[in-house]
């Protein structure tokens, strides 16, 4: 198809070839993606539950977010390395996959939201209703990212 040349090229890159090489390469990278998921979305969800006022209420949102931030970033880094690796392995098919397109749209929103409004919502001066709203939006966006990711294999 016209316009696929970039994605065809991606599949010829050394890392794509490595992904398509040994049988264990893809599942191992996918497992790292899942561990990154637990670290990134897992720690973001903890902050979201705190913003909603239903978990870790003895700590302030700002302290919790500050303590978890480095682990969220490590998890996100792991995701943003392993995700494109898997994508490269079969880029032409993946880029036409509606679940992947949905996931990428949600991921862009989720990342922008995370580093702007979500971060601001953890400040002690944020009104409680606004903090709750931010927690809810963040949870919803990340659930969409995960659900979209899970559906890639099924469409």
């Amino acid at each position, binding site marked *: 198809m016209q316009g696929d040349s970039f994605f065809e090229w991606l599949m010829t890159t050394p890392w794509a070839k490595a992904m398509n090489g040994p049988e264990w390469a893809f599942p191992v990278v996918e*497992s790292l993606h899942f561990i990154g998921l637990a670290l990134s979305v897992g720690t973001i969800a*903890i902050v979201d539950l705190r913003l909603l006022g239903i978990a870790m209420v*003895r700590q302030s949102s700002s302290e919790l977010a500050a*303590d978890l931030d480095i*682990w969220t970033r490590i998890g996100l880094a792991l995701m943003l390395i392993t995700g494109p690796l898997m994508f490269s392995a079969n880029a032409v098919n993946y880029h036409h996959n509606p679940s992947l397109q949905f996931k990428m749209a949600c991921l862009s929103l989720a990342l922008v939201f995370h580093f702007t409004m979500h971060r601001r919502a953890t400040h002690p001066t944020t009104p409680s209703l606004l903090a709750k709203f931010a927690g809810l939006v963040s949870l919803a966006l990340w659930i969409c990212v995960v659900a979209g990711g899970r559906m890639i294999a099924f469409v």
Partner: protein
Amino acid sequence: MNTVSTLEWVERTNLSTAIREGALLYPIIGGFHVLAIALFGGMLVMTDLRLLGWAMQRRTVSEILEPFRMWKRAGFVLVASSGLLLAWAEPLKLYRSTSFWVKVALLASVGVHALVFRNGVYQNAKALDARLTPRAKLAAALSLILWAGLVVTGRLIAFDA
């Protein structure tokens, strides 16, 4: 009745057929499984990292472990029950998958881990506030390794024949 015929019976149950052959049920349950991994896994990893003394050190061990406990339990129930449903859908495939049996062995090890470390470490957080014992660090390291192994074997199942 031998094992294979029992598993064939499982596959003929309405629930198994519905999950296996329905277009949406399998991915939805799979989605719950993954979301629960994110929630439960995140808290589990942070608990163990705190026990290792690598994360959230501004707070005492008990201040981290105790509020996470209920959420970890709920997450575990969600992971385990959705996993059981996925297994119910294709028991014969799993029976023949090496990765599945490694995963079962790891799950059994998680049970042993709980028996060995629950009283001394996870239910004993207050005592660890004063000093992180080597036993607590060992428990945390083993827990991280076991759960990473469960993720890897879970993923490998999909790639076994």
